[in-house]
C-alpha cells in the first residue's frame, strides 16, 4: 500500500483517525488519546521497548505508576481544586502576615480553639506546609506534563502535515467538484491558495496517481498553551526568589527627621530567609513636610510627603539633597529599594519643665485610632526631676503622660474624639503620672504607651488630667509644667526590595499572551485530493470552534475551485 512521493517519502494513506492525531490541544478538547500523546497520562515514562534488566523495570513499576497518576490531568484538576479550597481559610482567619493584632485578638477571644488552629497553620495559611504541599505537587505535575508536551510540540513544529486520509468526504467538512487538467498542476494551485492563507502545506503523490495537498494551521495554539504553563513556572520561581532574597522594613518619620537604610533605623525589619544585612543599599530619606488634604466630611483627598533623599556612598557623608514628592501610588524608587508611603499621623510637640528648671522637649508620634485621626500616644520622661547636685538616681520622680491628640477638638463636649482629620483646632488630652516608669528595668517596650503594670502596682501614680490647646501650659501639683507647644505630622513608610519582581512581571506577561493565543488560535487541517479522473475533493477538520472553521473552509474551497477549470458540462 505504500507509495513514493516526489520527495521520496514513503506514505501509507491513513484513515481519518490519523488525520486527527495531534490536532487537538489543551486546554480545550484534548481527548484521552491526545492527553496520552501530549504527555498527560503517558503510558510509560521511557517506554521504548524493554531496556535494561527486567528486575529494574519491575522495581520501577510502582514509581512509574505514581508518576503517571501525578502527571495526569485528573490529578492536576484535583490539585487545582485543593489549591482553591486551601486558600479559603486564608481569608476567614486573621493572618499574621496581614494583621498581627487581629491574630492576637482571635487568641484572646478563642483561648481554647486558637492554639489548635495555630498548630494547623490557620494563621499562616499561605506559608503553611499543607498549602506548599499542594502547590508544589501541582507544579511537579505541571512540569511532568509540560516536558513531554514540549517535546511533542517541537516535533510537530518541524514535522510536515500528515498524509491525506483516504476518504476526505468523511471528514467533518468536505466538498468536491469535477475538474479538468493535470492533477499535480491543480494540486499546486490549491497549495498556492493555502500557502497564501499562511497554511503549512505539503504535496504528495499517491499510488493511484492522485495528488494530495495536506495543510495545517494554528500551531500557535499549542505554543501559547505551553508558553502559558512555562511562564507559570517562571512566576513561581520569581515569587520564591522574592521571598528568599527580598526584604522589607517599615519606619515612622516625623517632619524634620530623616532615616537611613540600616536595620537599626527601622521600626520593623523582615529579611528573606537567604538575605544578608550587608545587601542593604545605602540611602537616607528626610521628611520635610507632610500635607494631607481632606474633604469637608473628613474623607481624605490627597496625601503628599515632601521628602529629600540621597543615595550611594554620598549618603554616608552628606545630607539628603534630592527632592521628591512621595505619595500614595507614587513610591520613591531607589537603587535596590523602594520607599512607599503607607500611613501618616500627628506628633504633638510636648515640653516639660522639671523641678530644677530643665526643659525636656520631644515630639512623640501618636498613632491614629480612627478616620478622624484621633491619635493615641505617650510621652515618657525617665530622666526628669533628678537633683543635678546628687549622684543618686531616684526613680520615684519620673514623669509620664499618656492620652490623645485631636487634630480638631470638638467645640463643645468632652474632648474625646476628633471631628476632622485636618489640624484645624488641635488639642491634646493627657493624663499625667509620677513615679517609677519602669524604664530603668532595661526591658524594651512600646513608645506609644506607658507600662500599665507600673500603674497597677502603684509605682506610677496619676497626678491629674488636662486638655491643652496649642501653646497652653499645664502646671502640675509640684510646680513642674507641661506645654503643648505645637505639632508636626509624621509619615510611615514601607521600604523594601523584591529581587523576583521583574521575573514575576515578565512571566505574567507571557502567561497572558500565551493564554490569549491558546484560547483564540484554532488548530485545523485541510486536505485536497485531485485524482487522475478529474475529481477535486477537499476535506477539513478543526476540533475547536467548528462554526468558524466551516466559514473559513467554505471560502478556501471557493478560492481553490476558482484556480481549477471546471470540467465541460459540469459545474
Amino acid at each position, binding site marked *: 500500500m505504500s507509495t513514493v512521493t516526489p520527495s521520496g517519502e514513503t506514505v501509507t494513506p491513513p484513515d481519518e483517525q490519523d488525520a486527527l492525531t495531534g490536532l487537538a490541544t489543551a486546554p*480545550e478538547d484534548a481527548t484521552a488519546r491526545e492527553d496520552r500523546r501530549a504527555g498527560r497520562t503517558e503510558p510509560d515514562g521511557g517506554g521504548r521497548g524493554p531496556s535494561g534488566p527486567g528486575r529494574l523495570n519491575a522495581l520501577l513499576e510502582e514509581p512509574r505508576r505514581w508518576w503517571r497518576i501525578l502527571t495526569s490531568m485528573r490529578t492536576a484538576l484535583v490539585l*487545582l481544586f485543593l*489549591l482553591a479550597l486551601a486558600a479559603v481559610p486564608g481569608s476567614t482567619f486573621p493572618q499574621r502576615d496581614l494583621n498581627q493584632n487581629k491574630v492576637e485578638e482571635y487568641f484572646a477571644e478563642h483561648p481554647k480553639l486558637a492554639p489548635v488552629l495555630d498548630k494547623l497553620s490557620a494563621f499562616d495559611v499561605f506559608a503553611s506546609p499543607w498549602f506548599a504541599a499542594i502547590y508544589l505537587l501541582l507544579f511537579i505535575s505541571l512540569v511532568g506534563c509540560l516536558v513531554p508536551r514540549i517535546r511533542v510540540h517541537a516535533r510537530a513544529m518541524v514535522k510536515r502535515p500528515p498524509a491525506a486520509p483516504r476518504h476526505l468526504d468523511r471528514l467533518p467538512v468536505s466538498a468536491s467538484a469535477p475538474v479538468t487538467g493535470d492533477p499535480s498542476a491543480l494540486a499546486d494551485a490549491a497549495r498556492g491558495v493555502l500557502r497564501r492563507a499562511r497554511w503549512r502545506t505539503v504535496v504528495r503523490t499517491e499510488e493511484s496517481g492522485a495528488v494530495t495537498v495536506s495543510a495545517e494551521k494554528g500551531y500557535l495554539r499549542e505554543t501559547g498553551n505551553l508558553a502559558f504553563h512555562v511562564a507559570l513556572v517562571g512566576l513561581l520561581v520569581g515569587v520564591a526568589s522574592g521571598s528568599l532574597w527580598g526584604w*522589607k522594613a517599615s519606619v515612622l518619620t516625623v517632619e524634620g527627621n530623616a532615616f537611613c537604610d540600616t536595620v537599626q533605623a527601622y521600626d520593623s525589619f523582615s529579611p528573606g530567609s537567604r538575605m544578608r544585612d550587608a545587601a542593604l543599599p545605602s540611602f537616607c530619606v528626610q521628611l520635610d513636610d507632610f500635607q494631607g488634604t481632606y474633604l469637608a466630611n473628613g474623607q481624605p483627598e490627597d496625601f503628599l510627603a515632601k521628602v529629600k533623599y540621597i543615595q550611594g556612598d554620598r549618603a554616608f557623608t552628606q545630607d539628603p539633597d534630592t527632592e521628591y514628592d512621595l505619595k500614595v501610588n507614587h*513610591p520613591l524608587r531607589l537603587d535596590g529599594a523602594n520607599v*512607599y508611603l503607607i500611613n501618616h499621623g500627628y506628633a504633638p510637640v510636648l515640653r516639660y519643665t522639671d523641678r530644677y528648671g530643665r526643659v525636656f522637649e520631644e515630639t512623640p508620634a501618636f498613632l491614629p485610632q480612627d478616620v478622624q485621626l484621633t491619635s493615641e500616644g505617650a510621652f515618657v520622661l525617665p530622666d526628669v526631676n533628678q537633683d543635678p547636685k546628687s549622684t543618686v538616681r531616684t526613680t520615684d520622680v519620673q514623669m509620664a503622660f499618656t492620652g490623645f491628640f485631636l487634630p480638631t477638638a470638638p467645640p463643645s463636649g468632652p474632648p474625646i474624639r476628633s471631628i476632622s482629620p485636618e489640624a484645624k483646632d488641635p488639642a491634646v488630652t493627657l493624663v499625667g503620672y509620677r513615679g517609677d516608669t519602669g524604664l530603668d528595668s532595661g526591658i524594651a517596650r512600646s513608645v506609644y504607651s506607658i507600662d500599665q503594670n507600673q500603674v497597677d502596682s502603684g509605682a506610677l501614680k496619676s497626678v491629674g488630667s488636662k486638655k491643652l490647646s496649642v501653646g497652653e501650659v499645664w502646671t502640675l501639683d509640684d510646680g513642674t509644667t507641661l506645654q503643648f507647644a505645637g505639632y508636626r505630622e509624621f509619615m510611615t513608610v514601607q521600604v523594601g526590595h523584591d529581587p523576583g*519582581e521583574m521575573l514575576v512581571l515578565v512571566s505574567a506577561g507571557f502567561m*497572558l499572551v500565551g493564554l*490569549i493565543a491558546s484560547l483564540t488560535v484554532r488548530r485545523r487541517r485541510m486536505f485536497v485530493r485531485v485524482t487522475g479522473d478529474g475529481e477535486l475533493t477537499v476535506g477539513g477538520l478543526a476540533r475547536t470552534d467548528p462554526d468558524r472553521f*466551516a466559514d473559513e473552509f467554505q471560502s478556501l474551497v471557493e478560492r481553490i475551485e476558482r484556480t481549477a477549470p471546471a470540467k465541460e458540462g459540469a459545474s
Partner: protein
Amino acid sequence: MTDAQLADLSNTLLVVAILAYTVAMFGYAIEFAFGRKGVVASRAAAPAKRVLVGAGGPEQEEATAPPAPPAPTAGRAAWFGRFGVAAAVIGALAQLGCLAARGFAAGRVPWGNMYEFVSVACVVGTITWLVVSARRPVRYLGMFVMLPVVLLLGLAGTVLYVDAGPLMPALNSYWLWIHVSTASISVGIYLIGGVLSVLYLLREGYDRRVAAGRAANAPGFPFGVGRHLPAADGLERMTFRLHAFGFPIWTFAIICGAIWAEAAWSRYWGWDPKETWAFISWVVYAAYLHARATTGWRGPRAAAIAVLGFVTMMINLYVINFAVSGLHSYSGL
C-alpha cells in the same frame, strides 16, 4: 450642568435602566413562555450542515434530543422578544448615561466604589448578552439574563448606593482605569457565562433523564425547564466561548491589580482577602478550562465548575466586601 444636577441625572437614569431591564425581562419572558422554541439552538449546534456541496460528514445529532418543533420562535411571541431586546438596549443606554453622568459629576472614572462596580458589571453583562443573542438564536432566553441583571442592579441602587464623590487617595491612580474596569468587565462576562452554564446543566439534565427512559413522565422541576432550552451542545459551546473570552480579561485584571498593588502597597501580592478570592476564582475558572479538556469531566461536571467560579466571584464581591475588612475596602459604605 452642575455636578449636583449631573449626579441627579445619573440617579434618574439608574431608575430608567432598572425599569427598562424589568420591561425587557417581561418581554423576553413572554417570548419564552409562548414562543415556539428549541429548534433554533439545535440548528446552531449543527454548524457543519452549512457546508458546501457533498458536505455532511457523520453528524452527531444527539439521539437523546427530543424532536425539534418545526419552526423557530414565531408570531406574536417573537415580537415580544424583539420588544425585550429594544427595552434591554434602552436600559443599557440609560445605564451608560447613568455611569457617564456620575463620572462627570464626580470628576473621575465611574467605577470608584462598589455601587459603581456592580453597575458596570451589569451593563457589561447586558451588552454581552445583546451581542451573544444577536449572533445566536437564543434571544428567547433573555429572561434568564435579565433576571440577575435586574436583581444585581436593584440591589446596587438601593443597598450599595453612595453619593457621587471623589476617590480616596489610594484609588487615585491611572490603574483604577484599567484594573477596576477589567475586573468589572470580567464579572459581567462571567455573569452571562454562569447563566448559560446553569441553562446547559438544566438541558443536559433533562436530556439525561429523558434518555434514562423516564420520558413517560416528563422530568420535573428544575430539569423540566430543559425541554424549552436549546440543544445542550450549542449551549455548552457558547458557555465555553464566553469563559474563554472572560478568563484572559480576568487574568489581565489580576495582573494589573498586582502591578498597582506594587506601587500602592509596596508588594504585588499580599493575600489580602480580596486578592485571595480573586486567586480562588482564577483557579476555579482555570479548573473549568482544564476540566473541559479532560475525559470524564467535560460536560456537566465542567459546567458545574463554571457555576462554582461565578459563585466565588459573587462571594468576593459581596461577602468579602462586607464581612471581611482588608485593603480593598472601597465599597464606600
